[in-house]
């Protein structure tokens, strides 16, 4: 019978034990990553499809816009643009923009029609203060729907700001930086669309 108590105190036992556990842990992680990879990718694709359908009014597209994409360079970074078509004509472009919030980046998805009007805006990911800045989520507040139908000419460019900065968009009590970041990001998205319209719809 092996005397575990005695072996456990030997100097060689310690690194061997650590090694075995490191190996077991890596094995478990590799197995879990392999077993869940496909399901995670499918769930994320479904999330993307759901959120794309949310910013695009029903009936705007008869194509699978998840597959109809074009990549456009924006300040050195490639932006994937999903194109919603009816027949052959591009009716709307969907793409992600990022704004700076109170706590890091706010990822935003927006749909723009060919006239440069926003069809819908949704926040995909953020780390804003719960109960304050998270009113930018459509689930928690209708604020984000205030962008629907807005374009670069309506309101005028200098009015593309929160009310505190003499703009037209509401801020939240106790959170100004968050909506300010979203407004700026959406405006930037519209400018980006206007600058690359031929590339996107072409």
């Amino acid at each position, binding site marked *: 019978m092996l005397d575990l108590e005695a072996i*456990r105190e030997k100097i060689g036992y310690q690194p061997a034990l650590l090694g075995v556990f490191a190996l077991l*842990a890596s094995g478990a992680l590799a197995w*879990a990553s392999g077993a869940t990879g496909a399901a995670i990718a499918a769930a994320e694709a479904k999330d993307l499809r759901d959120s794309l359908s949310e910013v695009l009014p029903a009936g705007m597209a008869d194509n699978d816009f998840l597959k109809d994409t074009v990549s456009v360079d924006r300040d050195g970074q490639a932006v994937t643009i999903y194109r919603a078509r009816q027949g052959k004509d591009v009716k709307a472009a969907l793409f992600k923009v990022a704004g700076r919030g109170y706590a890091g980046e706010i990822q935003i998805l927006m749909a723009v029609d060919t006239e440069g009007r926003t069809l819908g805006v949704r926040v995909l990911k953020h780390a804003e203060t719960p109960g304050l800045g998270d009113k930018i989520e459509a*689930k928690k507040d209708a604020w984000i729907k205030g962008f629907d139908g807005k374009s670069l000419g309506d309101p005028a460019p200098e009015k593309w700001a929160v009310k505190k900065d003499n703009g037209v968009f509401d801020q939240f009590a106790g959170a100004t930086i968050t909506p300010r970041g979203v407004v700026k990001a959406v405006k930037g998205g519209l400018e980006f669309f206007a600058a690359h319209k031929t590339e996107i719809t072409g």
Partner: protein
Amino acid sequence: MSDNVGSIMKEGLWGQNVVFAQLLAMCPTMAVTTSGTNGLGMGLATTAVLVVSNVLVSMIRKTVSSQVRIPVFVVLIATLVTVVDMAMNAWLHDLYKVLGLFIALIVVNCAILGRAEAYAVKNGVVASAVDGLAMGLGFTGALTVIGLIREFLGAGTLFAQASNLLGPSFAFLEMKLPGYGGALLMILPPGGFAVLGFLLAGKRVMENRLAARAAEDDGGAQAVAV
């Protein structure tokens, strides 16, 4: 085994409560208790991890030498949390979208390593599982109470968005105080410290009163005996 299930549960829920008695896991306690729902979600996720980690640590307690036990436990807990994170993302995706934020935070919860060190490494598998459950539920209770108080004072609601976490049938939990805008401070970090401070003071006062009453009863009994 001198501990029975009842006394382990009592210690976890009250006597050795992770937050109110051991003052462990202060980081998640302060960070996620902005609403009752968040506190509950974080508590339940932590409970699940704590039970499994206590069981695993208890199973390997005879093979692990005391010199390298800390790195072994850290690797074990980190692996466990990562696997749970990936599995939930893959197969319970809707729940993951609500709880996902909290899962990664569990790795840095010192209460998990604390229980491995203080209990599971010295006790059997079943007792360790019960201890994990008791400590986890105590943690859940504490987080939910702090969250509810902060949410009520700060936003005038109770269990807002609980149906996102627990399913639509729990929508009845959601309450709103009409005509009260809330005191923002309570949602912000200072509110967390203030609420925790008052709760700790309240617990201390209550325990002192109970102890005083017990002493009085003892004194009375002795007087009769004399």
